[in-house]
């Protein structure tokens, strides 16, 4: 029995240390200020992916500054409370718990990467706190909770848009799909097939390859036999490079369709001519865009940070503004903010016209790009 009592004694000591520290800190942290509206933000501010976290923080800081300069939320000051999660799921959960327990925030911008969003979303659902991710892309997040929103389209969204484009704008009727065999590739190819066949086209052949594969001749031969008008290729840069080279060697001259992975200077350097005329989807944010809202954003961002903004800060900037929009409409609790964000239609953000579907996924236009004379250009330009 002696062991038992010592065990319990030790456990209690450990417990007491933890309880003492945290309750003490909680009390200090609970300063009540009713003149402020608090929103939580959890980003990877240190660690391996801190570079993205810092960019998103820049975007959020800029948005908050603008909101407060123009009178805040119904004369109340908007305050964001940052927590660092280092891109680590358990740290993300701790930060989330801290923000909703000690600060009682109704909404949290966070879960910047899919791993963190997937860990935190079930808790957000249970606690009825809005979780709004600026950049998580995993298809598994679609419909995970009514309290979860994201401003970056799901990985499979590109497929849907490209399918529609291929059927309506390019007026193709026979397309082959060549995809990487994982969640992303399978999901994307299904979305493409659905929207393309709805538009009147038909998929003549579907072939897959494993991630990291280096020989695509078998698949390409099969595709060639089916005589499609275009091939929709879904893969990562590494495979794309080899695939395109083998396609060139086999002398296949078929229109190429591809994904955001294609938008990489390495493609132009290493593939050159074989990439010519390929069409692919890309996110809408473009710092050189002539629209007024983007112009002011770029100007203010450069004035504040001395560098050009990119897609990461633009995404976070829009997220903060959407949350502020909900707050300005008088939403206070998590469920009220949830209801307001779900209603957002055609919000004019720097990353494009933003709406949300019933599953919390963002609906926003994508750009179609192509390669002409060895450079990436907008598909519509010069047509």
């Amino acid at each position, binding site marked *: 029995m002696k*062991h*038992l009592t*010592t*065990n319990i004694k*030790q*456990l209690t*000591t*450990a*417990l007491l*240390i*933890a*309880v003492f*520290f*945290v*309750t003490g*800190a*909680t009390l*200090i*942290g609970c300063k009540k200020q009713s003149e402020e509206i608090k929103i939580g933000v959890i980003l990877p*501010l*240190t660690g391996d992916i801190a570079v993205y976290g810092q960019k998103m*923080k820049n975007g959020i800081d800029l948005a908050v500054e603008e909101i407060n300069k123009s009178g805040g939320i119904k004369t109340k000051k908007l305050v*964001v*409370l*940052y*927590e*660092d999660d280092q*891109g*680590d*799921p*358990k740290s993300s*959960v*701790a*930060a989330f*718990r*801290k923000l*909703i*327990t*000690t600060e009682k925030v109704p909404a949290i911008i966070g879960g910047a990467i*899919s*791993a963190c969003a*997937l*860990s935190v979303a*079930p808790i957000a659902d*249970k*606690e009825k706190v809005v979780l709004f991710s600026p950049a998580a892309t*995993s298809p*598994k997040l679609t419909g995970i909770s009514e309290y979860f929103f994201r401003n970056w389209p799901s990985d499979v969204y590109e497929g849907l848009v490209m399918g529609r484009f291929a059927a309506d704008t390019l007026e193709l009727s026979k397309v082959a799909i060549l995809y990487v*065999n*994982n*969640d*992303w590739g399978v999901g994307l190819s299904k979305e493409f097939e659905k929207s393309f066949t709805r538009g009147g086209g038909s998929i003549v052949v579907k072939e897959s390859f*494993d*991630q990291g594969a280096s020989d695509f001749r078998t698949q390409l031969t099969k595709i060639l036999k089916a005589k499609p008008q275009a091939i929709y290729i879904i893969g990562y840069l590494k495979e794309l490079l080899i695939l395109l080279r083998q396609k060139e060697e086999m002398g296949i001259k078929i229109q190429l369709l591809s994904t955001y992975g294609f938008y990489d200077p390495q493609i132009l350097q290493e593939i050159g001519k074989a990439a010519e005329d390929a069409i692919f989807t890309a996110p809408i944010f473009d710092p050189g865009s002539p629209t007024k809202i983007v112009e002011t954003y770029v100007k203010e961002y450069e004035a504040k940070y001395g560098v050009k903004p990119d897609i990461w800060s633009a995404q976070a900037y829009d997220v903060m503004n959407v949350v502020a929009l909900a707050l300005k409409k008088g939403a206070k609790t998590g469920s009220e903010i949830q209801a307001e964000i779900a209603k957002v239609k055609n919000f004019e953000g720097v990353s494009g016209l933003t709406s949300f579907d019933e599953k919390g996924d963002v609906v926003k236009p994508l750009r179609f790009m192509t390669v002409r004379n060895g450079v990436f250009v907008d598909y519509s330009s010069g047509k």
Partner: protein
Amino acid sequence: MEYLLHILVISGIYIILTLSLNLIVGYTGLPTLGHAAFSCIGAYVSSLLALNFGVSPWIGLIIGACAGALLGVVIGYPSLRLKGDYLALTTFGLGVIVYSIAKNWVSVTRGPMGLPGIPQFSVFGVQLSEIWLYLILVGVFVWVTIFVMRRIVNSPFGRILRSIREDEIASEAMGKDTAKHKLLVFIIGAFFAAIAGSLYAHYITFIDPSSFTVMESITILLMVIFGGMGSITGSIVGATILVVFPELLRFLGMPSSIAAQTRQMIYGLLLIVLMIKRPQGIMGRYRFK
């Protein structure tokens, strides 16, 4: 309140990890740097069983622990031939291998995309989704681990472990089978680490390889050294403080532009100061050789 409970759950999981590593590093004196590999196996085996075959987390936890023990044999075997730094490097390598398998065997582990939606434990049909219920579950496992560890180190078996630590050749000269004991220590340590991994997976309900890097192994080793090698109380205190302290630093109230970075620096500073002032750890008996 849930915040506090969450920290306690995480502390509990790390206490199990630290105790199991303390048996290997602290009591037997075998420096290892691959402890996260064991918890990785435990987490993945029980999650995959639950997700693909609908196996109850309870059975998954046991199978995962056995798989961890099996890996303990694989990692423990080189320990029979290698000593000191060489053993540390070998276990480091095996830790990297397990991490790489989890990351690259995409068709089974889903690689860097991770495993979402892992089911939670349930008792008599009641899901332990309430965090305080889970804390009780983790508390029970912590208590069992402490109990077993205490029994081991205070038994004749434990005395042999310490004799291996002090002087392996003398121990062998006394007729003790040191090889068998070293292997057993790895198996026991791996078994409990795998349990901790499984508890983690079914709590967070999402795992990906990034939770089981070599850095994670080093963190656990840090907890052992910080608390004190060869001390059970030390492991408990070490794990608790190193889990609680970074959370505590969230309350410093610094401006947001430097808060995150300062938090990391203060954490590092704490480790440096403690190692200079008290190299044997808070409650430890031995210094790190």
